[in-house]
């Protein structure tokens, strides 16, 4: 029974093994490029933001495919989760109805198109020219782990063999790591300064009350007695 099942499947699906890596690469590349082009084409700034999110998400997928998982996760978290949320906030704050879709005159668009096409041709020609880059990658490679990257950032290169030659010890990235963290701190403080609360909230009612003196001494029942018309003869 298994033989006929095997025959059926091979008859139905001729190729023996799918190159998964290639398939997923094409999928993510298609999404990334398609969304990037859509970003250029759409006028509605909110749609642009959405397409940008899709494009960067697909790029994160490409990073995973290329074996650098840490960079892929970092891209998802910092770039898409942080920077683009910031961008969308910016879009929300400024996207009043009349600003949502600003159209550029047709002349500039044509000019930009020509410029882009020329640039693209140059880049592709240079990408394809080097023969070494065209050969497919190594057949078997061990699954990636983040430890060498983590160690490298601490200044200890544990992936010596990857560099191929032992003569020159590889330098860790501790110094740039510290510089970037200080740099981010500076940017954080700068952004906080730019966005500081511009307008004091109108003084809360609490402060208003504090300035008012306590209530007048109210006589207790014994002196005041029930309320009665002041015009009645017995008024106090």
């Amino acid at each position, binding site marked *: 029974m298994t033989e006929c099942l095997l025959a059926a499947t091979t008859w139905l699906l001729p190729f023996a093994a799918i*190159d*998964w*890596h290639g398939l997923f*690469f094409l999928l993510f*590349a298609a999404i990334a*490029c398609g969304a*990037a*082009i859509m*970003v*250029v084409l759409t006028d509605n*700034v909110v749609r*642009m933001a959405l397409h940008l999110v899709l*494009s960067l998400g697909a*790029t994160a997928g*490409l*990073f995973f495919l290329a074996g*650098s998982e*840490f*960079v892929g996760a970092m*891209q998802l978290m*910092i*770039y898409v989760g942080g*920077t683009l949320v*910031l*961008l969308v*906030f*910016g879009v929300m704050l*400024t996207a009043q109805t009349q*600003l949502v879709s*600003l159209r*550029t005159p047709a002349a500039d668009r044509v*000019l*930009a*198109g020509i*410029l*882009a096409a020329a*640039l693209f041709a140059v*880049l*592709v020609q240079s*990408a394809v020219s080097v023969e070494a880059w*065209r050969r*497919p*990658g*190594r057949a078997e*490679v*061990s*699954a990636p782990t983040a430890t*060498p*990257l983590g160690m*490298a*950032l601490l200044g200890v*290169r544990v992936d010596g063999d990857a560099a*191929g030659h032992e003569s020159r010890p*590889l330098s860790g990235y501790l110094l*740039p790591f510290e510089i*970037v963290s200080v*740099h*981010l701190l500076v*940017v954080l403080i700068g*952004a906080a300064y730019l966005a500081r609360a511009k307008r004091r909230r109108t003084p809360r009612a609490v402060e208003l009350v504090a300035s008012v003196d306590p209530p007048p001494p109210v006589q207790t029942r014994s002196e005041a007695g029930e309320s009665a018309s002041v015009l009645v003869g017995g008024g106090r």
Partner: protein
Amino acid sequence: MLIAVGTVSVAHYLIVGAILFTAGIACMAVKRNALGVLMGIELVLNGANLNFVAFGSSYLAGEGRASLGLDGEVMALFVILLAAAEAAVALAITLNFYNNHATVDVDRADDLRG
């Protein structure tokens, strides 16, 4: 556990990087909305990132070819970090500009004052 890297080679990554790069440039050139320009910058940076990772990837490194090794990944890491910082500052400037001129139209930002 071994991973066979099929027919995908560095060139494919470079082409995708190129597409992203040119889309970014075109976006910067075409858009009148300041935020559109910012998005163009993000695309350009991502194009560059893709190339870094492609060269640094142990999967795609053919025998005997000088691969960037870990440098590519770390470089991509720093680009992502600094792009976040850059976006924050760029947005702060754009919003302040919007606040003063009630518009983010790049063509209207012609006087240097304020």
